């Protein structure tokens, strides 16, 4: 009994860590740029595919699987380059537009990135070999937990901690908060808003790509992964509250644990329950559990 509980809890928290990274990127961009970036799922998929490529090259050059985290993180950071391209090339034109158009523009980005992935990796699922198992497993109160999952959870917590520190304790964080709460005022006091937007969007992108890169030793990269993750990330931010980092954290935990709980107990309910909760939250607390804060 107790080991089942632990198993559910740990796989849920593992799932939540990945979701948190992607959702945090979504929240950051929404908080500052007021754009609901549906393309976060595509960033996640790009991170996953490039992560596989980096890890497999790393292994074939004789690297040990135990250091696989390095090429994975490298893949996430290399993809930072698409942040400024998308922000300067597309998003900057629509900040003063109706939000319908902003949503649609990010949808256009999904379409384009999907074919970029197809161009480089084709349509067959991609895998990493031998990374996940290389880390082994440990026993916690009778439950067997893969060590890699614990590493990802720790990595997500560290990233969450760094993000929290940057936002609340640094000059750059103060600037982000200023731009988020009133961007006209921020411009009036001499902040370069374009510069802030590029940086924020790039950080948001990297959070998504790292999320995708970290998940990849545990699962195959498939062409549907972007579209499936968008709705999960959507559920996380709606439950947590749009634009709130705490919300992304709580929402990811809730969605992650619910997902692993339903998969273990009654798989028929899996997504159903999540959408039901989204609807209930939207009806009774449309601002989300941790709404209004940035």
């Amino acid at each position, binding site marked *: 009994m107790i080991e089942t509980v632990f198993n559910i809890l740990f796989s849920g928290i593992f799932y939540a860590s990945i979701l948190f990274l992607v959702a945090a990127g979504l929240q950051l961009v929404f908080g500052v740029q007021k754009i609901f970036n549906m393309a976060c799922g595509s960033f996640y998929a790009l991170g996953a595919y490039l992560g596989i490529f980096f890890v497999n090259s790393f292994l074939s050059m004789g690297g040990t699987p135990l250091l696989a985290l390095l090429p994975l993180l490298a893949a996430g950071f290399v993809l930072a380059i698409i942040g400024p391209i998308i922000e300067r090339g597309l998003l900057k034109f629509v900040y003063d537009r109706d939000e319908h158009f902003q949503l649609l523009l990010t949808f256009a980005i999904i379409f384009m990135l999907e074919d970029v992935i197809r161009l480089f990796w084709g349509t067959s699922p991609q895998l990493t070999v031998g990374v996940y198992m290389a880390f082994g497993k440990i026993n916690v109160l009778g439950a067997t937990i893969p060590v890699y999952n614990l590493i990802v959870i720790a990595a997500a917590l560290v990233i969450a901690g760094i993000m929290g520190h940057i936002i609340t304790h640094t000059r750059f964080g103060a600037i982000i908060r200023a731009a988020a709460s009133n961007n006209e005022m921020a411009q009036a006091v001499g902040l370069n808003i374009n510069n802030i937007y590029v940086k924020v969007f790039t950080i948001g992108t990297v959070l998504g790509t790292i999320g995708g890169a970290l998940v990849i030793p545990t699962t195959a990269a498939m062409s549907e992964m972007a*579209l499936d993750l968008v709705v999960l990330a959507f559920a996380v931010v709606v439950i947590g509250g749009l634009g709130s980092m705490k919300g992304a954290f709580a929402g990811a935990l809730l969605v992650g644990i619910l997902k692993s709980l339903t998969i273990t107990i009654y798989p028929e309910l899996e997504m159903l329950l999540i959408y039901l909760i989204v609807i209930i939250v939207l009806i009774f607390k449309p601002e989300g559990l941790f709404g209004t804060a940035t």
Partner: protein
Amino acid sequence: MKKRWNIILLLILAFALVWPYVGPDYQVYLSLSLFSYSIALLGFNLLLKYVGLLSFGHALFIGLGGYTTAFLTSEFHIPHMEFSIILSILICAIVATTVGFICVRYVKIYFAMLTLAFGMLFHSVLMKTYHLTGGDEGMALERPYLLGIDFSSMGTIEFFSGPFYYYNLGILIIATIIMWRIVHSPFGLCLQSIRDNPDKAKSLGIGIRKYRLYAFIISGCFTGVGGALMATATGHMDPGMVFWVHSADLVFMTLVGGFTNFFGPMLGSLIFIYLRDIITSFTEYWRFIFGALLAVIVILCPGGAMEALTNFFKLLVGKTKPGEKI
């Protein structure tokens, strides 16, 4: 101006009537999707253009119409298309009343998110009730009777480019006329006043939520009819038709064609269906081109192809009056 538009519409209609005789079979078959999407988009754009609400879950109604027809023809062996359409309308009206009752309390992004969530809720129900709906695999549809006539002895191509083509065209014309009357009625004007200034509309005694709900129900019914015809033409219905990406396709078509124009979404579905067909014939990367096209339209020409076309037309006849509407 108005007269000229009537002439254009008549020309298009005449072309649509002879199209099965002159067009290649495959292109004629593609126009069945064009008709059914056009009907679905009439409903979708009632919300977007006239009420100012962007639904990101309208594939829900396409699914309701499609699955209703699938159940009727394949499970219950009631092949009458008219019956499928009427039942689709009823079911869509019931579901739209419940869903709409909740959704219309919100506007903007919250409305989009709620409709998205409801659409995906239906999607996951379809996926999980595989003993009824076939889950991932979906359901096959049988060829329906049209106006009580059994066409089962007819070849597939003859059926789709013959009776079913004209049946679709007929329903599209009826739906267009009904929608035209709706948006030009006092009811339609009320909807626009709510969109433009909800507070003022309220002070004039218009029940905002009530009117939004009515619009949502009407919109759902039109989209449901589109779904019933769509599923019949493809002969197959699966949860992919209800996935959020399909809802986004509807938004795509509407904006590409131009949501500010009554006929814009139809032009959009024409572009979407035929352009995709043309692009896929020489490259598999149609999504990239479509994404780029969408980005260009969003950034440079928010009025869509219809606006570009009308501007060009006005330029051609040299009678441009600023701010003139059709």
